């Protein structure tokens, strides 16, 4: 029986079509994002991919992406965090009180906010990890508590504006270190008003690094006799990713350059992707989510890891809270309202499993942008918020149905 199963798998792998079918989920998400972008690009007469809108798109979704990184880990470990929207709002409020009312130095205030986020995560994670109280309940309570706490902190009022040095974490752009002459020369070459060389270089550099890493991985996999994707797919996928990256960063380059937030988001995404896929602790989190009892009996300190997953979530919610407040240039009691649902939706659209143990950082990030592009595109088209909600809901449902269907077909 085992032997026949083996030949069966190998047989399936030979056809390119068959390969696509088996890896539909991974490619599907990428294609879905591209298709949605192409659709809105056409329907909005090119507004979607205008440099200013691309920049906006990144800024608008930055805090969702940042929180999705932490949420992915929480969900992979088999839990959920409903409190992140409230915590984000609370930390935004806290930063406003510290900086505007108490006149604390910005960097000190930021450190305090991150510590507060960690503490909030710890307070919730403690009950989940060491007392076995369902995370749904604990964080539902947290959601109410911190929603109330932000109202209390702000006394129901908006608080702003922030000093310039705080605003830049969301609205600032990285200064272009290259001589202006190069930028002007490139601008002339491409026939645009200006080109931020750093942004363009980042796009090219990132593409080169991705291609190099993928090649290395592919060579290694081949060396160990692992099944690799067909060459056509490999190059096709890399080409799409590289072109898309350069394209997006070129758009940014012709506007104001590299947003600070993109840098934060990009660096965090890389760190978390590496952490989840290549480190001992990351691997143990997947095992814990896949089968907590088996992981525990294998010597994994499951309680501590669960606890840390929530602490980490708190820290990222704090960072997101500051980005959000800085972007609006004020803290409002409404900030982060219902945002946890967008974050959770992004993670599930990205292919994570409700029961834990499955999910990827890159999936969550792409999922977040898919939602972001839908929001943005529909807003440009002037579709009402009512329809937007309905459509987003259906997209989430479709993604999960697709997952379940795919899985049932395989077994």
């Amino acid at each position, binding site marked *: 029986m085992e032997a*026949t*199963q083996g030949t069966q798998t190998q*047989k399936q792998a030979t056809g390119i079509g068959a390969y696509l079918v088996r890896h539909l989920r991974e490619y599907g998400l990428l294609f879905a994002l591209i298709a949605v972008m192409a659709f809105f690009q056409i329907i909005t007469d090119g507004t979607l991919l205008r440099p200013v809108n691309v920049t906006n798109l990144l800024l608008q979704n930055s805090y969702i992406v940042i929180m999705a990184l932490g949420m992915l880990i929480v969900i992979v470990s088999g839990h959920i965090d409903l409190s992140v929207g409230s915590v984000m709002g609370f930390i935004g409020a806290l930063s406003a009180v510290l900086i505007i009312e108490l006149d604390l130095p910005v960097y000190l205030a930021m450190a305090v906010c991150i510590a507060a986020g960690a503490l909030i995560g710890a307070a919730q994670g403690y009950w989940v990890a060491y007392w076995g109280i369902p995370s749904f309940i604990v964080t539902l309570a947290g959601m109410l508590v911190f929603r109330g706490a932000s109202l209390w902190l702000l006394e129901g009022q908006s608080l702003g504006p922030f000093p310039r040095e705080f605003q830049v974490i969301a609205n600032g752009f990285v200064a272009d270190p290259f001589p202006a002459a190069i930028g002007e020369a490139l601008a002339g070459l491409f026939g645009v008003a200006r080109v931020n060389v750093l942004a363009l270089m980042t796009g090219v550099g990132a593409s080169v690094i991705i291609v190099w890493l993928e090649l290395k991985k592919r060579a290694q996999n081949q060396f160990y006799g*692992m099944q690799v994707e067909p060459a056509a797919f490999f190059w096709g996928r890399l080409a799409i990713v590289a072109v898309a990256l350069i394209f997006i960063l070129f758009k940014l380059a012709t506007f104001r350059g590299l947003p600070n937030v993109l840098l934060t988001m990009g660096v965090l995404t890389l760190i978390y992707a590496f952490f989840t896929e290549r*480190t001992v602790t990351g691997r143990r989190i997947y095992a814990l989510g*896949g089968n907590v009892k088996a992981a525990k*009996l294998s010597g994994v300190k499951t309680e501590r890891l669960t606890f840390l997953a929530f602490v980490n979530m708190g820290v990222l919610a704090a960072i997101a809270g500051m980005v959000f407040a800085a972007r609006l240039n004020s803290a409002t009691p409404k900030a982060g309202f219902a945002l946890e649902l967008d974050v959770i939706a992004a993670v599930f659209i990205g292919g994570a499993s409700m029961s834990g143990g499955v999910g990827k950082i890159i999936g969550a990030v792409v999922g977040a942008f898919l939602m972001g592009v839908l929001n943005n595109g529909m807003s440009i088209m002037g579709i009402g918020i009512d329809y937007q909600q309905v459509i987003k809901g259906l997209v989430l449902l479709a993604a999960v149905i697709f997952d379940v269907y795919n899985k049932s077909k395989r077994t």
Partner: protein
Amino acid sequence: MSVLLEMRGITKEFPGVKALDRVNLTVSEGEILALVGENGAGKSTLMKVLSGVYPAGTYDGEIHYDSQLADFAGITDSEALGIIIIHQELALVPLLSIAENIFLGNECARAGVINFREMERRTVGLLEKVGLSEAPGTLIDSLGVGKQQLVEIAKALSKDVRLLILDEPTAALSETDSQALLDLMLELKEQGVTQIIISHKLNEVRRVADKIVVLRDGATVSAMDAGEEDISEHRIVRDMVGRDMAQRYPARERRAGDLLMEVDGWNVFHPLYPDRQVIHDVSLSVRAGEVVGIAGLMGAGRTEFAMSLFGRSYGQRISGSVSMHGQPVDVSTISRAIDAGLAYVTEDRKALGLVLDETIERNITLSNLPEVARGQILNEAEETRVAEDYRRALNIRTPSVFQHVVNLSGGNQQKVVLSKWLFAKPEVLILDEPTRGIDVGAKFEIYGIINDLSEQGKGVIVISSEMPELLGICDRIYVMNEGAFVGELAAAEASQERIMSLIVTH
């Protein structure tokens, strides 16, 4: 006797696999037929075809039931004709009562309102038939597996069963419960219920079956009539594995080196009831290269003892001392126990041993990730190399170590769990029911692995409910009953009778 069921030329294909290849099966009214074969031989698939789980049209061949051509579109069709399957994993709702479970989906109700009195009255009658003395209102949750099995049978009887199919009914049962179940099968036969039993346990099969059909690789290999032929276990095993297995247990040289591990005065209390002592003053020793068995009935406390020893993963108020090479060691948490050189291979590999939705590779390295990492950073190439080594060494049958373990057969899953613990480089391995639910061929391989471990000078403690297995592979056997060791026998002086008598006289 007239023929109740005839399956002719049943062929069932899955993409790329022929699960059943022109299987013929004839069951006469009122007999018990035993279906035996290795895991993956096609027994369960055949029963799924019969019960309509795979509807007519998805397989080739014909089913004649009660002289009628039967083409079931689903399980309701087959149940309507009195064909009922009791699956290995029981399908009872734990928090409903016995009566509610028996009539689940078939409630005694008028206009949707349940008549509980009528339901309980009928339940009492059914429970009497299966010999279960429990109140109909008892929650399933509070019953042991043996009694739950009886409730399943009562449920089948409530549906006017004519052909009862039992899939590995005794796999999770203790010796006494198994015997009671087999007696019940014989009694039901008297009442005219035709039965098919799927089992790995040949002694049970021989006890109840009128006819034995052996399946191998999706085809019928032999059909033996218990009344006429002299059926030896030897012959059945040979038909099952397709080769003459001269010995069920590989030969080994008994060797015992220096004292390796010693447990002294081990006491454990129940995790929920701090007053209830589960393990009483247990002391045990293992020498290097020695295979030590722990015999006992289900519920004797063997698993509880092993798990409490392994990082206190069971129980509370644990006292007693553990030493390795004469030095006291700390086994108070699982990671400390692992560091001390202990490994525990669980009896429940799916729930406690494996991350089913992960690859073979990732399961194998889980207990010792730092070994394939530099600091925090994993070396994936090294990880693959390690997994490949174990795949080859333990003969895990899989196209690659990147297969998810959920797709493997029981025997291969067990080898993955063993690999995981071998990779943790332990000195003493506790194997809890290492061959439960796996087929004869894989069992033989597991015994071979145990021998290899002993040759490498490791200490092995084997917990098993199958006494012949312990007698076949151990150097020394402790007998456990009601949480205490009641005897210790050297392999030469041990026998099933002596073990049993130690249990019953204490």
